[in-house]
């Protein structure tokens, strides 16, 4: 197994562990403004993904990303299934020629684009997009403009995603179940933005190892 492939499998496993630990918290967030299943959706989906990628022979990062996306698509119903899963499948092609700082940026950009396409949400709609946009923009700028090493860039991106997730609290939802609440959605942290942050944090931890 290539070192990058091994790291990719480890990253998925790390995400799965983290989301299992955050299961109740994410479900609590989703109870307040949704239907109380985001924790279960994520924990279950990523646990299956970890199982699936562990079974790949000789995986590379693209295969791992694609298998993860496919598993999420078929294991997670709900909005987060096609958003996380479909976008991963699509973005994985950017890694076909291996994991480099450039391909990582392309992967992140494609992932974001696909989430926006499918969900039709913009920044400020109180969704995962609010965490994703600062994450991807900061990552791209740190690599392409500031020339920072990928791990440092990712750390900055995680900080940005954290602010993005926090930003969902004081605003009103326009997409997702929370939008049904109208003004009552103000004051709640979006579950999908929060899980996106947890995924990013787990990737960073793996990259640091």
């Amino acid at each position, binding site marked *: 197994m290539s070192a990058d492939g091994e790291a990719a499998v480890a990253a998925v496993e790390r995400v799965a562990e983290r989301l299992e630990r955050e299961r109740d918290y994410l*479900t609590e967030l989703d109870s307040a403004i949704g239907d109380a299943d985001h924790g279960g959706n994520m924990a279950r989906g990523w646990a299956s993904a970890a199982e699936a990628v562990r079974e790949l022979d000789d995986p590379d990062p693209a295969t791992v990303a694609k298998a993860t996306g496919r598993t999420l698509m078929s294991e997670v119903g709900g909005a987060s299934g096609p958003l996380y899963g479909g976008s991963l499948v699509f973005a994985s092609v950017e890694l076909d020629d291996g994991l480099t700082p450039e391909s990582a940026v392309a992967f992140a950009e494609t992932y974001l684009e696909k989430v926006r396409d499918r969900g039709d949400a913009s920044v400020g709609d109180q969704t995962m997009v609010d965490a994703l946009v600062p994450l991807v923009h900061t990552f791209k700028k740190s690599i392409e403009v500031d020339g920072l090493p990928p791990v440092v860039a990712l750390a900055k991106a995680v900080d940005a995603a954290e602010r993005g997730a926090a930003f969902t609290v004081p605003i009103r939802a326009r997409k997702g179940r929370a939008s049904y609440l109208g003004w009552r959605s103000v004051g709640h942290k979006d579950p999908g933005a929060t899980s996106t942050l947890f995924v990013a944090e787990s990737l960073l931890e793996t990259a640091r190892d």
Partner: protein
Amino acid sequence: MKKLINDPDDVVDEMLDGMVAAHPDRLRRLSDTQVVVRTDAPLDEVGVVSGGGSGHEPTHAGYIGDGMLDGAAAGDVFSSPTADEFEALVDACDGGEGVLAVVKNYEGDVMNFETAIELAEMEGAEVATVVVNDDVAVEDSLYTSGRRGVCGTILVHKAAGAKAAEGADLADVQRVGQKVVDNVGTMGMALTSCVTPEKGEPTFDLGDEEIELGIGIHGEPGTERTGTMSADEVTDELTESVLADLDLDEDQEVLTIVNGMGGTPQMELFVVNRRLQELLDERGLDTWDAWVGDYMTSLDMAGCSITVCAVDDELKELLAAPADTPALTVR
């Protein structure tokens, strides 16, 4: 919270087996899926399919049978089925005349169904969609993801299923489904929260002196939390909201549904229906048919929803046409 379940992870799987065991001559479960279809699917006519999260029983599989659905995909509790499952469903119900997919307007359902349809169309299937969004509690605007699909969905199943049974083509079956959507409105309320098998505790806290108006069928908070009210007051609130949305002419004929959320006994639903009919009468509307029962539930939530659907001659014929399903029989 106590429930008649085994492992929460198995509840949907075991429920589906239990449904099929109750109706082995009518229902068949596609192996390795949570999709249930009629035993003789696909028929030689337009297939009508539906699906969504579980926990709304008898929706969806309870409406499979002559004159209604050909099949339905069940997601986990309150979670949309995956695209894979929807695809298997469409495939099993496509007899060559095309398939109408009845989708409730939730982003999860819509996105997963869309993906499935793209996949099925790549295989040469012809699929049309009706998106049901009858919940008037939600503002239908650019500022929301649109209104939710709730109890009015049953009427879409009924009308589209009856049209398909007549041998109509896909466009026509879709047209009548859409006609129901264009003429139906629903609003719900909760006395108590539902308890999901997974969480095992109320999804939201509602005090002993509080009720929630405009509740969703997944325990999504509603539009307003107020003090407890009498059955008549609740009925007035819900009905006025629905009528304000529908804006019907005097003497319009309507079909009404007083739908139980799962934990409310029929006694109370009939008390609500009494006031509903009185109110429609005062408003000069003409009840053509009145349904009372548990059609679109939210697990064990106590509460109800009121649906009003304006009907013309075509819809009356379709809604009164024979249907023979586990949960709804019309003869």
